[in-house]
């Protein structure tokens, strides 16, 4: 009985098969976007007296149906919005805010806690413009918080928030949370939308 060796299977076409599968997965892959701007809607409350807010503490942003911006009764380009909002929030007109770097103009907002940004849009406003404006306003808050966090803790606010959500971060999370709360209290996000 001659023992014959099993013949080699030709593996030359394995690459072709693998390519076929590869191309299938390449085509079907969609990179899912799972990030965006988080917002909180106000709850519906009936018969609530609207709080009385001084006119100088309100920063009105109007977005009309043709995607034009009207900020504090003046036409403005989108690129200038962030700076204008930052200046308004950081003004500190009543001089109680010792961490503000603004101009302390008595005709602008009293302090970051009282300053409110009011955003109004029309039904015809396009979504992309609305998102752009929302983004710029959130950016204004984030810029201020970043500056404050860098001054206090030597790290930017955004970085600290990322650390908080990072499971592998080695530092003390309780302390980090406290620090974040403090900054959020100093620059509270008061962004109201008019219906």
């Amino acid at each position, binding site marked *: 009985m001659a023992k014959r060796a099993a013949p080699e299977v030709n*593996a030359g076409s*394995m*690459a072709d098969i*693998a*390519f076929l*599968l*590869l191309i299938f*997965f*390449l085509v*079907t*892959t*969609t990179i*899912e*976007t*799972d*990030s*965006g*701007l*988080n*917002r*909180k*809607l*106000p*709850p*519906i409350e009936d018969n609530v007296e609207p709080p009385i807010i001084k006119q100088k503490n309100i920063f009105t942003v109007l977005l009309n149906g043709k995607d034009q911006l009207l900020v504090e009764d003046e036409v403005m380009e*989108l*690129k200038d919005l962030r700076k204008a909002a930052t200046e308004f929030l950081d003004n500190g007109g009543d001089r109680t805010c010792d961490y503000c770097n603004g101009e302390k103009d008595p005709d602008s907002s009293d302090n970051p806690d009282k300053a409110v940004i009011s955003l109004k*849009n*029309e*039904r*015809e*406003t*396009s*979504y*992309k*413009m*609305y*998102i*752009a404006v*929302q*983004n*710029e306003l*959130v*950016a204004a808050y*984030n810029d201020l918080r970043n500056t404050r966090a860098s001054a206090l803790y030597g790290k930017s606010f955004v970085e600290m928030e990322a650390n908080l*959500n990072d499971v592998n971060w080695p530092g003390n999370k309780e302390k980090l949370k406290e620090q974040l709360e403090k900054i959020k209290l100093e620059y509270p996000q008061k962004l109201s939308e008019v*219906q």
Partner: protein
Amino acid sequence: MGKFKKNQGGDMPAISTASLPDIVFMLLFFFMVATVMRQNTLKIENNLPFADQVEKLDKKDLVMYIYAGKPSANYRNFGTESRIQLNDDFADVKDIAAFIAAERASKREELIPFLTTALKVDKDANMGLIGDIKQELRKVNALKINYTTKKGSVMSNN
């Protein structure tokens, strides 16, 4: 001199392609692992706007998706006005309440306060529709929302 002549005239040895399958398999495994199959078949155009102050949505199972946009080319008989899509079909504004209730019913009770509504809206939609959706969400007390955007400069929106 004669000793070395042999090599110079000879042609190049063929490059071995034996490791080609390995490389291809490596790529294949990467894409197999990275692929997420879409949950919903979109019947609308869904070109998300750009923003750069984004936060990540974690815990995928705690997100409810509401899509909106123009019906895509195959569904032109539904018109060209922006519409809402819930799950796999077009929906009306008044269907949102039922949709949220159904989503809540499918989750464990202690997780319900952490549910977030992600609005995946086409960038050319108008705010009237979004305003209606938001009003409806307020009525059913689903207050945590997220405007899903792509990461990029807002100036590239136009």
